[in-house]
């Protein structure tokens, strides 16, 4: 695989972004996101750093742990697409959830300027629902 220097830099940026997220080191994570970045996903549209901070705060409040692993990545011009697996442990139940998703991002100057996340919200929803308690006899 031969990438142009920009494509290779974009791939490297995504790997660093994911490493920072795993720490989590949010200051570094946000260095890879343009201030006016727009992110589309089945759960809605999030625009800019401020809305992203609010979204992240709400999401991570419900998680004990969170880790994404890149399964595959391709770069083409200003586009990077990567398949990933998320492993999360829910708070307070400690329930482990795992799902796969795909991110399609457009990059400029080493930052994500637009992103689309694709995942099956039905599958994720099933996993996030609290487990049913056994009915008392």
């Amino acid at each position, binding site marked *: *695989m031969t990438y142009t220097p920009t494509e290779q830099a974009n791939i490297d940026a995504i790997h660093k972004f994911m490493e920072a997220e795993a720490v989590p080191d949010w200051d570094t994570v946000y260095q890879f996101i343009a201030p006016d970045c727009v992110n589309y996903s*089945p759960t809605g549209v999030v625009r800019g750093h401020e809305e992203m901070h609010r979204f992240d705060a709400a999401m991570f409040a419900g998680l004990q742990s969170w880790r994404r692993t890149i399964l595959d990545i*391709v*770069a*083409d011009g200003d586009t990077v697409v990567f398949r990933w697996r998320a492993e999360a442990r829910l708070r307070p139940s400690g329930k482990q959830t795992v799902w796969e998703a795909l991110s399609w991002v457009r990059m400029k100057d080493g930052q994500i300027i637009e992103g689309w996340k*694709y995942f099956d919200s039905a*599958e994720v929803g099933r996993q996030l629902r609290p487990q049913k308690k056994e009915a008392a006899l």
Partner: protein
Amino acid sequence: MTYRPTERANIDAVRRMIALEGERDWEGVYDLVTEDCVTSMGELVLHGKAEMRAYDAKYFIPVFSRSARTIFDIAADGDAVVFRWRADATLAADGRAVSWEGVSWCRMERGRFAEGRIYTDSAAIQRQMRPPKEPTP
């Protein structure tokens, strides 16, 4: 964007497949797929062309009287082709129009589809497939 001849051929194969789907030329579509192609969408995994045919014959072809996908964006990298698309379809049962978006991540072998992963939100599709509620008197 400079593609190698193989990447260009892979992009052309994707566009040909999408055009054949729109014409509902299913045999033309299957000609572009290897015999042992593995297709997955969430927890559903189809092994080989025969399983793909059986699935389409039961769950796709009779359900939609019309269906066509439009490619928004396409990226090619080595033997991988990834494309974002919107599907517009008409339900055979009642003529309602439905649409959904997704990404297909394909691995190609000699111009044919050897592996395909579809990332889409099945919840969005299911919501649209439900019969409309009768107005309350």
